[in-house]
């Protein structure tokens, strides 16, 4: 053992085992959260809060990486092999597809966390030009002649699907409302749409920066964010008489966390969204908290309006998707019927 290279080897071995020992004491964990577009700022804040909690609880350092994009596109990335520990997407249908096509999580994933696995909710509302020059108060005003409506394409944007269903659901719920009338209403609404961007952020830009249109159908949080970003002197938010309860769901991706050994952290990460701290952060980013106390604190930001759910009105996502947004569905018929 006097040979210099043996000594060096011994030293290397000692160092390696030291490092290994240290990493047993405090692990470095990375999680990948694959999310949709408007949650960027929300999760930037939340990740910091969670990392601090997790460090205090376990001593481990957790670094949560974020990936954002259109909800459907993000789901497809996960199906095609992007190793997401957790997915936090715009609609349950996208996570359903991850379960069905890639078998990465069980079909009943939505029952595993409270409130249909949606730790916060949102809805679809109107953003209008300051002073509301066209006098837009409710969904019925959107089909008036001369009103120009901006929304993203429901076929490519998860958010726009919520908006479409909100309009359709409102029409269904009017006195004497039925499918034929609702179809007619939605066709007239889309006849007033001059531009269909592919994503919700894109249509916000078209409305706010390009100056196109009189009213933007927007996520509640995006509308609030636009006020913050572009100034309250530019736009007003209008709450229609009723809208849809949007539940952006979250889920642990079982196959990935089991492979990477990150299940405990991933699970805790999502559960932390339900704690008062997580709820507070969601509310600060204009997502409606489900915790009553936090909700009461922010009641001023979130006016009470009548919200209907996709399950009650449309029989769930799978059915709504098939009837309305699949090829040849109600949305396609609006444009090809003429």
């Amino acid at each position, binding site marked *: 053992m006097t040979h210099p290279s043996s000594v060096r080897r011994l030293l290397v071995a000692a160092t390696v085992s030291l490092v290994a020992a240290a990493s047993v004491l405090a692990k470095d964990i990375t999680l990948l959260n694959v999310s949709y577009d408007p949650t960027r700022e929300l999760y930037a804040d939340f990740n910091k809060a969670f990392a601090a909690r997790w460090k205090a609880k376990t001593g481990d350092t957790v670094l949560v990486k974020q990936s954002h994009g259109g909800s*459907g596109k993000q789901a*497809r990335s996960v199906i095609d092999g992007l190793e997401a520990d957790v997915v936090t997407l715009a609609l349950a249908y996208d996570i359903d597809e991850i379960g069905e*096509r890639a078998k990465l999580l069980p079909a009943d994933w939505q029952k595993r966390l409270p409130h249909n696995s949606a730790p916060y909710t949102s809805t679809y509302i109107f953003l209008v030009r300051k002073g509301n020059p066209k006098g837009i108060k409710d969904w019925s005003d959107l089909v008036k002649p001369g009103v120009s409506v901006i929304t993203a394409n429901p076929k490519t944007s998860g958010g726009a699907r919520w908006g479409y269903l909100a309009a359709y659901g409102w029409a269904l719920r009017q006195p004497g409302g039925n499918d034929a009338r609702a179809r007619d209403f939605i066709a007239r609404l889309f006849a007033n749409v001059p531009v*269909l*961007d592919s994503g919700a952020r894109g249509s916000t830009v078209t409305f706010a920066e*390009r100056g196109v249109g009189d009213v933007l159908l927007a996520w509640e949080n995006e509308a609030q964010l636009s006020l913050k970003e572009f100034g309250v002197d530019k736009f007003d938010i209008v709450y229609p008489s009723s809208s849809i309860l949007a539940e952006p769901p979250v889920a642990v991706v079982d196959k990935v966390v089991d492979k990477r050994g990150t299940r405990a952290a991933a699970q805790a990460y999502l559960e932390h969204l339900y704690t008062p701290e997580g709820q507070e952060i969601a509310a600060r980013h204009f997502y409606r908290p489900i915790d009553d106390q936090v909700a009461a604190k922010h009641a001023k930001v979130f006016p009470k309006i009548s919200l209907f759910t996709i399950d009650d009105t449309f029989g769930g996502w799978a059915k709504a998707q098939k009837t309305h947004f699949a*090829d040849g569905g109600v949305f*396609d018929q609006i*444009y090809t019927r003429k």
Partner: protein
Amino acid sequence: MPRAHLLLTRHSVLPGFNLALGFTLLYLALIVLIPLSAAFLKTATMTAPAFWSAVTSPRVLASYRLTFSASLAAALLNALFGLVVAWVLVRYEFPARRLVDALVDLPFALPTAVAGIALTALYSSHGWLGQWLPFKVSYTPLGVLVALTFIGLPFVVRTVQPVLEDLQQEAEEAAATLGADRWQTFRRVIVPTLMPALLTGFALAFARALGEYGSVIFIAGNMPMVSEITPLLIITKLEQYDYAGATAIATVLLVVAFVLLLAINALQAWTRAGHGP
């Protein structure tokens, strides 16, 4: 020694033919053929009627019309004005010539989304340019043409420029001394020399325009039946997890593009052989 081997080696004058050809085929297979055949294989999972209805639905047909006509128009515009730009850059000395020369490459370097957003802002009805125009550009098929022209410009300039630089002015002078007027010199001397390069540039600009997505979706307005480009419909299909339907449309786009490029190549060979204008 097998005969085939002898046959292959007999014709090559340069050494290393086998290795170079092997490498070329492997490289092309890895980079081009395998990814593309994946698209064809995915399409092959569809039944014939399903394929037919996916690639001939009214919205898809409308998008072919827009994509092919706008790409063709943009490539033609670029062939014409790209030639002028290349001519000016090669034949004249003027201040900031190098700067202008560098500007030509910008559409290459700029992320297409940035280009799309910038063009949309410029040509929207409140934009710097759009407010002075009597007709709408952003959110109409015309906007598609503008975006495709923008991204296609460097192809023609960069293919024509080197040929123009090599073109000896003596040839033109000789034509002049032999009694040709300016138009005849241009038509009989310059154009035939430039034609193959011009066609290459045209083909590249056209092919690029067919597949362009990033810049167009911002300016097109994406209205079904009016201003949806074919690549957008492919994305739309993917968004519905309809992988086969998406690749079906992609296959049609690929095959048509390939046939058109082959035709342009043939035309090029024909002009190079001394025919043409």
